[in-house]
């Protein structure tokens, strides 16, 4: 059995270094175009991979997760922020799961 506090220390330590090191060490722009491009795409790829198909398996019925995904994308496309989109996805799953 692993220790949760060590897990938390690793989580905190690595996140802290990631956030703080570039800001303190790099005082010029990164030269490598590939590296800059890679870093540019990383967040979107990671979040996309984590979202799908997980959103469909997280709900009681795959249909409700799929509808929540589409509804969330539409609202975000129309300019909805973090909070409204998160709430819409939750409500969508709640309502559709209740109906099915």
């Amino acid at each position, binding site marked *: *059995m*692993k220790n*949760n*506090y060590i*897990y*938390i220390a*690793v*989580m*905190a330590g690595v*996140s*802290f270094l*990631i*956030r*703080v090191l*570039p*800001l*303190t060490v*790099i005082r010029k*722009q*990164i030269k490598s*175009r*590939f590296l*800059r491009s*890679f*870093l*540019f*795409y*990383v*967040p*979107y*790829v*990671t979040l*996309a*991979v*984590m*979202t*799908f198909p997980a959103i469909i398996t*997280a*709900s*009681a019925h795959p249909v409700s*997760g799929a509808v*929540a995904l589409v509804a*969330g*994308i539409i609202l*975000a496309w129309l*300019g*909805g*922020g*973090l*909070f*409204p*989109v*998160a*709430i819409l*996805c*939750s409500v969508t*799953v*709640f309502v559709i*799961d*209740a109906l099915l």
Partner: protein
Amino acid sequence: MQEITRSDNRHVFAQGARDGIPIGLGYFAVAFSLGISAKAAGLDPLQAFLASLLTIASAGEYAAFTLIAAGASYLEMAAVIFITNCRYILMSCAMSQRLDPATSTGHRVGMGAFITDEIFGASISREGYLVPAYTYGLASTSVLPWALGTMFGVIAGNILPSSVVTALSVSIFGMFIAIIVPPSKKDPVVLFTVLISFLLSWLSGKLPLLSSVSEGTRIMILTVIIASAAAALFPVKEVADEE
């Protein structure tokens, strides 16, 4: 360059604190659903509070709790936190380009420690050199709700009916969607990359080799492959400062 007085700093901090309130409200709700994952991973309320207070990362924490649930190694935890929080490297780099070169190391550490998608986005949306006090103000009203939300998620995950817990657990994905859609709308290459990511993520769950590794590792492998391919095929001209 204008001189920043102590009262200016207090004013800017107050502005940041005010702007942080809507961020904090959103964080509380999303963190609540994160707390449900934390509970599933076997964390108690104090551990969940500490994990969120010290990590402040939605996607990273979600992946981390998945790993804890699976009893992964500490090295795997470090690798997954690194890869899921990779975007903070970019944000930290972007911030470094917007600081007064004379900014002390202490303030660089302080500002960096609070980088999240929203705090970064709000900080960088101001004109001119970034003022540390503004970022601290943002953090002052948003980070604690994030940690408390996770803690209450662990505590109240029990009390709420399972249909509500399921619905809330989906809100974290709603947040991810809200982060990836706006840049996809602006940049067709990002949109294409996101769609490819959806497709490969779905396929990788079916492939014999990839489906046998843990979820966190799969996320890491896919991210490196897809982001590298995108970087090689569609190198960006100028890394945008704004999120």
